[in-house]
């Protein structure tokens, strides 16, 4: 609660009883930035009742991001997987669809399960029964008809491996194992 003027008692009280997310001490921006939800302990309320928990008058301290409340909002877990990309990723995986040109079905994988590109590619190879070539920054994937590509947040088709792993898993929306000339085309150039 930066900006509270200690001398101004009325202002202090107003802030203390203001209803917002999170425990007293968080500022608005930190709450909206992270995806984790506020977790007021049961019985603790910020606001209306006279017998509310004592915290309202506590000294200002910056609070760390809150843990998500279990089972809230009350939607069944398979619906949570369909939440907007904004949702917290701490507890559930990063599921993306994988398709391969020529294969009649899609598969779904959890990117969080893999620690890096080599693990991911190995998994894809065994899932779809094919081999990927050697990766080089300049030439893309050599030695195979296939090239693993992904669609990123902006909808662009990128070659898997071009960006650091952490950046990849946060921006990858869909994986596509391309075949043939289109695959080679993607490998060239920046």
């Amino acid at each position, binding site marked *: 609660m930066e900006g509270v003027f200690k001398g101004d008692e009325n202002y202090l009280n107003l802030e203390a009883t203001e*209803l917002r*997310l999170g425990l007293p001490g968080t500022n608005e921006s930190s*709450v*909206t930035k992270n*995806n984790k*939800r*506020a977790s*007021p302990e*049961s*019985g603790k*309320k*910020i*606001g*209306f*009742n006279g*017998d509310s928990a004592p915290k309202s008058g506590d000294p200002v301290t910056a609070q760390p991001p809150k843990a*998500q*409340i*279990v*089972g*809230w*909002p*009350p*939607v*069944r*877990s*398979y*619906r*949570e997987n*369909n*939440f*907007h990309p*904004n*949702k*917290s990723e701490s507890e559930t995986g990063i599921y993306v*669809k994988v*398709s391969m*040109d*020529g294969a*009649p*079905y*899609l*598969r*779904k994988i959890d990117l969080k399960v893999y620690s890096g590109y080599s693990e991911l590619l190995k998994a894809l190879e065994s899932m779809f029964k094919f081999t990927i070539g050697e990766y080089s920054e300049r030439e893309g994937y050599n030695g195979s008809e296939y090239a693993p590509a992904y669609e990123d947040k902006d909808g662009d088709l990128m070659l898997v491996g071009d960006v650091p792993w952490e950046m990849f898993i946060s921006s990858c929306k*869909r994986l*596509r194992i391309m075949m043939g000339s289109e695959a080679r085309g993607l490998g060239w150039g920046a």
Partner: protein
Amino acid sequence: MSGSLDHSDKGQTAPDLSIQMALSSDQALEIVLENVLCFLSSRHDRNAASLVCKSWYRAEALTRSELFIGNCYSVSPQRVTQRFRQVRSVSIKGKPRFSDFSLLPRNWGAYFATWLVSMVDVYRGLEKVYLKRMCITDDDLAFLAHNFPALKDIVLVCCEGFGTSGLAFVASECRNIRVLDLIDCDVSDDDEDWISWFPESSTSLESLTFDCVESPINFEALERLVIRSPSLKKLCLNEYITIGQLYRLMVRAPQLTHLGTGSFSPSELVVHGEQEPDYAAAFAACKSLICLSGFKEIVPDHLAALNPVCANLVTLNFSYAHINAEQLKSVISRCVKLKSLWVLDSITDEGLQAVAATCKDLLELRVFPTDAADDADGPVTEVGLLAISVGCRKLRSVLYFCQRMTNTAVTAMSKNCPDLEVFRLCIIGLHRPDPVTGEAMDEGFGAIVKNCKKLTRLAVSGLLTDKAFCYIGQYGKLLRTLSVAFAGDSDLGLRYVLKGCPMLRKLEIRDSPFGDLALHSGLHHYYNMRFLWMSSCRVTHKACEQIARQLPRLVVEMISKDEDKEETSEYVETLYMYRSLEGPRADAPGFVRIL
């Protein structure tokens, strides 16, 4: 009843009949009774009939063919199979509803296996199994498929413990299978191509629902199955079915009435120059289609394909479709006969206004959230709810997730929609007051219980004081189910409800400051309830022990998250209590303590 009746004799009565058949008059009466009771189908009527006298009890027990067990632990399989001998249909419900939201640890119970063991000798003619929130394994499914040759309908709702292997058993061994519906189940992917296990001959399948099965399906096998299932009326596909594959299936099954469309998006492979199928034509050919769902990965370009069927739609489930208001409008504006609509809040208030403008016969509306995060504002608000209440006067059931709501809008709905039986409002932000007045949401919910005289189910949220519960106790005379989360001030709140709602059967409460005094105030009523759930409240172990002593027919379960955790906390983490004829169950795991 065989035997000849001599019509020429005047004044023939039962005693004469009994002489002819060498029966006692009691036996004759019972036979008559059985023949009459056969026509009684409602279980409530049957329960009443069974209480008349021993004779009626026996006759009813022999003629009951549909068994409904609302709580699998309220009665044992042995007791049930000893009393009811001619059962053809079994419905069993297991875990409490809050288990859907991860509030119940795994392996709590509700195993179907114990029921199978008892049923196998007695219910050889079993035709239908309906399970909700039960644990059923692959072995159980194999046992079921193998030992009940007359089995026609299997419906599993919110069940878990099995995988595609179990489904393969069902497919291959249930020769008369007519309905196989898996709804919201957690089905593990054992890599088993279960669809291929259906027999090669023509099947009697009428309904196949597997949209919750999160593993790839052998499409060719599915297509062949659809071709050889001429009675198929309901088909709900999973998200691994692309729109191109959907097209092929629809072409094979134009007689469908219910269709779950799968992903409703193309696979990645779109060969350049290849003609896209005429999806609209496929829909147009399905002249009996009244129910649509799926749309798990919808590409809005294809929404227009739905146009030919919109005018006949009775049910539309868009709750997985991330579409905006404009996209919804293009569809909903044609859905004049719609009675049930499930949507995502991505459609915004504007989308809801469009619904209100067209769907005058709407009976049920569910608006689900796309985002779990707390925002001061969300895509749907009091504006949308108000619009719906004005346009859809016949509403009976509402489920509405939002970030903000006003008492005015809720009150308006209570007046505009007097037929409401189910009102579930979830204001996602905890303890949110009315953003316009700054007041608690007491008056809005008060208006609902007061004005909606047919209300049987209520879920409350937002900032609520004990006053809200006072209203509920005062006016909620038909209320059967109540869900409370993060609400109330003191024991008084729960007291009002327990004292005031005589029809209350299911009460589930979480994270609310209700304690021992409140718990005690319901002693007079707990035997009339199916269950009471209280988690993260202020109930002490002592109070629970007292309740258990005073009500011996009540099973009082104290559930903690960890098995090892000593009872360090003052309050019981989760209290789950229910009436039972059997006493404490034998299969409780370590983290459950039964008093």
